[in-house]
């Protein structure tokens, strides 16, 4: 690959982010632990009766995983902002939206993929019926990139703010409500024996749209908040 091309720049950004996470891979476990702990809180809160837990399992797992991803969003740009490389990205001749898309991809790979891997464990903890598990994994596979992309736009807006954690949550959650409704809705439909393809297809359509538009929006938002 020729150095200096946009492809090389994107691969470099992706590789750098993955390498940085690998060097501190202990930190990458935090969202996993958070998700498992939140899932474990439900039996403590509503009682260990299997029938009750089965009813809410899909939704509770969805909420726990989305919250875990939300917590890790803040770190998306923070270290780059602190050492100045974020400004170098903005100033680079390559399209900022592509570079940000690579950063979001690295975030998804290092946060959402491990969460997807522990989703079956969480499903066991809450007695999720076995036939629903593939639907849950499919819905999560569609919902987590949506969360990464929409979250990236909101993180770009709150860049440079100290203690922006709670504000970020307030900004992302209203935008993520439809994803949750349709993702958990697909799982609940599958659990009730009803057709579940429609919500998943809608999620897929939104993902396609967001994959194109969110990096552009994040780039514009970053330019607004860095000036």
């Amino acid at each position, binding site marked *: 690959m020729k150095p200096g091309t946009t492809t090389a720049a994107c691969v470099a950004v992706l590789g750098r982010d993955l390498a940085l996470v690998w060097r501190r891979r202990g930190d990458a476990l935090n969202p996993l632990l958070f998700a498992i702990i939140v899932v474990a809180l439900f039996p403590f809160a509503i009682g260990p009766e299997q029938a009750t837990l089965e009813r809410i399992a899909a939704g509770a797992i969805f909420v726990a995983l989305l919250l875990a991803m939300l917590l890790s969003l803040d770190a998306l740009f923070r270290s780059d902002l602190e050492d100045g490389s974020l400004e170098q990205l903005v100033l680079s001749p390559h399209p900022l939206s592509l570079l940000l898309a690579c950063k979001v991809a690295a975030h998804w790979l290092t946060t959402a993929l491990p969460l997807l891997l522990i989703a079956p464990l969480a499903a066991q903890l809450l007695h999720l019926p076995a036939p629903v598990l593939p639907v849950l994994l499919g819905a999560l596979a569609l919902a987590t990139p949506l969360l990464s992309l929409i979250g990236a736009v909101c993180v770009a807006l709150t860049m440079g703010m100290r203690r922006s954690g709670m504000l970020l949550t307030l*900004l992302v959650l209203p935008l993520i409500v439809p994803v949750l409704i349709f993702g958990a809705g697909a799982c609940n439909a599958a659990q009730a024996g009803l057709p579940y393809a429609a919500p998943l297809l809608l999620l897929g359509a939104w993902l396609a749209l967001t994959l194109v538009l969110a990096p552009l929006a994040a780039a514009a938002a970053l330019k607004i*908040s860095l000036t």
Partner: protein
Amino acid sequence: MNRLVLWFHRLGSPPYFYRFAGRWLPWLYALALLTGAIGFYGGLVIAPADYQQGDSFRILYVHVPCAWMSLFAYAFMAGNGFVALVWRIKLAELLAMASAPIGAAFTFVTLVTGSIWGKPTWGTWWTWDARLTSELVLLFLYFGVIGLHQAIEDLRQAARAAAFLALVGVVNLPIIHYSVVWWNTLHQAQTVNLLGESKIDARMLWPLLVLAFATHVYFFASVLARTRAALLALESGKAWVRALVAPATEPAHG
């Protein structure tokens, strides 16, 4: 250029807008009060009781104009936000940020009056159907815009960031409007049509339209008042503001 375009461009100048808003404010408030009184008299006294709900339907005259205003205020905010982001016009930034708390208040009143109306008629204070949920999401979007605006120190950058967020959330407006069409909702489907026949008695409809007009006028009066205050805050170091505040202490020349 013609006089209308010239006047429009003049409105972008802070001191001119300040004087313009100051002149029109009392008239707008008076008009809103007058038409509001007429509308409320028509709705609470003249309109006949509903055949099914009796007199409890009259909360419609608060709930529906506020609901319409919650959507209009967001569209107004998003429109001004778009102008602010593209053309960097100071007044557009201020108008957008001034309309956010007003829209949030209208949304809150919509949700509360709807809840009060729902208790005797539906038997519940709240239900998670599409219309109510999307209106609640609208309230959270307003809070997000207001919160983001408060969190950034530089006023102009804060307004631009919040305007961007408002534009991202504008997708919620058609969702709210069509929620009763796309989903099976507990909330009533569309009764009042802009083009075509409305499914409501004319004696009940005219106070509703008068109140819709009154709330729009009140909204514009509120926006102008808030923008005036925000303008003073933004331009606090400028000569025209100093002249407003302390005209008598101008140093004598010579």
